[in-house]
């Protein structure tokens, strides 16, 4: 039994997140105010449904229904499942969960239905009746009992009913969310019982909503009115959905709903929800913008060093990002069992790989082209072709899979209408972190000092004993390394393939130029501005038009301020 029973992964998963996010102070304060997760786990005693009972009759029932699960027709399968769920036996849950998780198979030889557990390349089979291990077999000898979308939804709802009173808060909560849309009046007593026992606040709210959703359909007008009022307090999409339904009109524009009082209240409730939703909608757009901005920042910041500080137009910058993403892939191939860790390892690895490529490019090509910025553009374009084709030849022309660790998927739910996706949050802070590190390197280290000296006056720097060639290589390596690090982040958002770099190169240049060359702060502000502008334009202009508008505004902006947002200071600018 133990081997099959799913550990409560979800719980650990949430805890993990909280740990990771403690560092994100900014969001932490937000979390406190909207906390759904931070609340403590309920300690009330809610009796477990599965107390021990006599089994023999149920066994026969089970034995009768289980073979029916093999049918191909999903409608019949659903009917069997519903029958199965009615049997009051803890084993039904095991079977249903196995089916849900694609672990229910039948043996091709004798058509016997078994539960399996994958062990390396072999399958260990277990009895559906008592979970006893049966044998270890080859995959070929088994056939999976297929599920489809609808079937799984049915199973979830059936399981949820059994879990409303579960002692574990997360299980309860997920179960309740599952049945919100069920619209099943028979659930009302259980829900009310749960409401009496419940101590957790968010779960209480959810229960209220669930009850209101059922009571809306009551025959009593007052019950309905109060239910409608309560719906107006909830930000869950189902609440709004229900209200929308109440306010539905026929083809003549007349309300289908007859009860005037209900309509009036529903309209009010709808307004409340809508105004809240639009606020959160704007916050969400802002977050999207910041997130896009952080991606642009990551992509551009390396360029801002090679282009801004060294005056080298590196068209292969995108390919250095791509190399970083491929490094992530290769690191994951080396440590397939520690996906989370591999991502952390990939950061320095990508920095080194792209950095070394950068140094090689600088030593091999760019060194010979200083003072001819437009020629570096052409030569590095050649390099970008080479790198792309190299990856195609050595690895594959196809995209490669980079796995996202669990702590990077999903989202931080601040309230039902406002959730921030974890990968974006991490990437946002990661971008800021990379930015801060670069600032530190440039401002506080001797390398940084030398880099700035060379950037400002190469001749003078040489005269003062700085090995400018060495500084050039390191600077270019640094910029390229940062591009590699950006690749690690991008591998979590988008395809990793030979064309990855192409998608970012033009945007990166725009960011750097917009921000003002030789100014990392400019790059930061520019990236965020472009990201946010883009995202606020997108809803009404569409993704493509938004981008076109941003590009054209940028062209016009540069006319007004040819040196970007934060031009380099000094009276010497302009020559002579």
């Amino acid at each position, binding site marked *: 039994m133990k081997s099959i029973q799913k550990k409560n992964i979800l719980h650990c998963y949430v805890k993990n997140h909280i740990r990771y996010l403690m560092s994100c102070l900014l969001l932490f304060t937000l979390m406190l105010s909207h906390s759904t997760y931070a609340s403590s786990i309920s300690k009330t005693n809610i009796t477990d449904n599965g107390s021990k009972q006599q089994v023999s009759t149920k066994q026969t029932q089970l034995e009768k229904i289980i073979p029916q699960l093999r049918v191909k027709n999903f409608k019949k399968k659903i009917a069997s499942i519903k029958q199965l769920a009615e049997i009051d036996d803890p084993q039904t849950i095991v079977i249903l969960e196995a089916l849900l998780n694609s672990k229910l198979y039948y043996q091709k030889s004798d058509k016997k239905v078994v539960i399996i557990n994958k062990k390396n390349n072999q399958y260990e089979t277990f009895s559906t009746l008592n979970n006893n291990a049966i044998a270890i077999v080859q995959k070929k000898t088994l056939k999976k009992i297929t599920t489809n979308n609808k079937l799984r939804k049915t199973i979830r709802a059936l399981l949820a009913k059994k879990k409303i009173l579960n002692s574990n808060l997360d299980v309860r909560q997920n179960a309740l969310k599952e049945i919100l849309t069920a619209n099943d009046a028979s659930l009302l007593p259980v829900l009310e019982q749960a409401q009496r026992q419940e101590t957790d606040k968010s779960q209480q709210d959810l229960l209220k909503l669930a009850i209101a959703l059922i009571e809306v359909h009551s025959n009593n007008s007052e019950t309905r009115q109060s239910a409608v009022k309560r719906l107006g307090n909830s930000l869950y999409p189902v609440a709004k959905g229900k209200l929308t339904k109440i306010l539905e009109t026929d083809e003549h524009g007349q309300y289908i709903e007859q009860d005037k009082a209900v309509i009036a209240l529903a309209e009010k409730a709808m307004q409340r929800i809508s105004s809240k939703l639009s606020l959160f909608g704007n916050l969400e757009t802002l977050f999207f913008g910041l997130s896009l901005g952080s991606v642009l920042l990551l992509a551009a910041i390396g360029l801002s060093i090679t282009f801004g500080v060294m005056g080298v137009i590196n068209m292969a910058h995108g390919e250095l990002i791509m190399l970083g993403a491929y490094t992530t892939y290769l690191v994951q191939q080396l440590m397939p069992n520690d996906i989370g860790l591999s991502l952390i390892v990939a950061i320095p690895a990508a920095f080194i790989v792209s950095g070394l490529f950068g140094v090689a490019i600088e030593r091999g090509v760019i060194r010979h082209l200083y003072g001819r910025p437009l020629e570096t553009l052409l030569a590095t374009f050649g390099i970008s072709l080479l790198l792309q084709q190299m990856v195609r030849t050595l690895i594959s022309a196809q995209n490669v899979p980079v796995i996202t660790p669990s702590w990077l998927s999903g989202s931080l739910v601040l309230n039902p209408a406002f959730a921030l996706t974890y990968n974006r949050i991490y990437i946002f802070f990661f971008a800021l972190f990379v930015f801060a590190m670069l600032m530190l390197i440039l401002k506080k280290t001797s390398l940084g000092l030398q880099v700035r000296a060379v950037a400002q006056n190469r001749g003078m720097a040489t005269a003062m004993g700085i090995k400018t060639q060495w500084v050039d290589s390191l600077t270019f390596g640094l910029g390229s390394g940062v591009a590699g690090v950006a690749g690690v982040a991008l591998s979590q958002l988008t395809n990793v393939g030979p064309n990855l770099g192409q998608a970012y190169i033009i945007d990166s240049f725009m960011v750097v130029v917009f921000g003002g060359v030789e100014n990392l702060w400019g790059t930061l502000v520019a990236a965020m501005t472009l990201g946010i502008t883009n995202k606020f334009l997108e809803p009404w202009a569409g993704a493509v038009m938004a981008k076109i508008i941003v590009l054209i505004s940028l062209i016009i902006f540069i006319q007004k301020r040819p040196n970007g947002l934060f031009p380099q*200071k*000094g*009276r010497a600018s*302009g020559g*002579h």
Partner: protein
Amino acid sequence: MSALSQVRYKVRDALRRDRTFNHTIIESDAYLQGTHSVHPNELDVSHGPVLYLEDISVSFDGFQALNNLSLYIDDGELRCIIGPNGAGKTTMMDVITGKTHPDSGQVFFGQTMDLSQMAEHDIATAGIGRKFQKPTIFPEHSVWENLELAMKTDKGVWHSLFTVLSAEQKDRIEEVIEIIGLQALYFSKADLLSHGQKQWLEIGMLLMQDPRVLLVDEPVAGMTHQEMDRTAELLTSLAGKHSVVVVEHDMDFVRSIANQVTVLHEGSVLAEGTMEEVQNNQKVIEVYLGE
């Protein structure tokens, strides 16, 4: 200044952004002509000075390059401007030639032309020529072509496309080549000239423009003594017909040509007078010795 002329400057300012359309400027000038006795595009030196700089201030990101500078250059005068590094000499030239716009103050060419409202090429066409500190010539062109390009003529695009040099124009170029002593190098690429020759070539280009005022920034840097003497000779000979403003570090050279010297310090005029007066000026001595 009258309210009306203020309006005029506003109009000009607005139109300045449409520099491509010269005709609009001319039209508006014609419209306003009745209020002025002299056409605004003609040089009017009836009051003596050809260049007026009044209370000019310029700052770059907090650095005060020019600080209420006032300076008058008379028509036909040869004026030397000296001052320590950072005194604002080059910035002053930038203001006159339209490269830098003053934060406050007025720059006039003659009585009528407000230089702060004009573009660089208009100022150049109006008769102010400038030689840069570092010789700036067209390296890929021959000596002849360098001079040809600088020649005073219609400098519109379409005219340039079809123009052919006339005999007089050729004579003029040859004349100037002789003045600057580069006869042997007619068709050499300018890039191949020595530093001194480049300085000369640039002066030659100035002469080709036939300007009313020549602004000369460190003309003798990198020249031998002989060359320096020739330059001095040339500049003095130009004075009278042209106004010449020379910025120079070399005191000997200044002494050899100047009768009137202005000392700049921290963006404003510290002293003005003959070389002797300036040299004995207590403030000037402090500034120079204090460094």
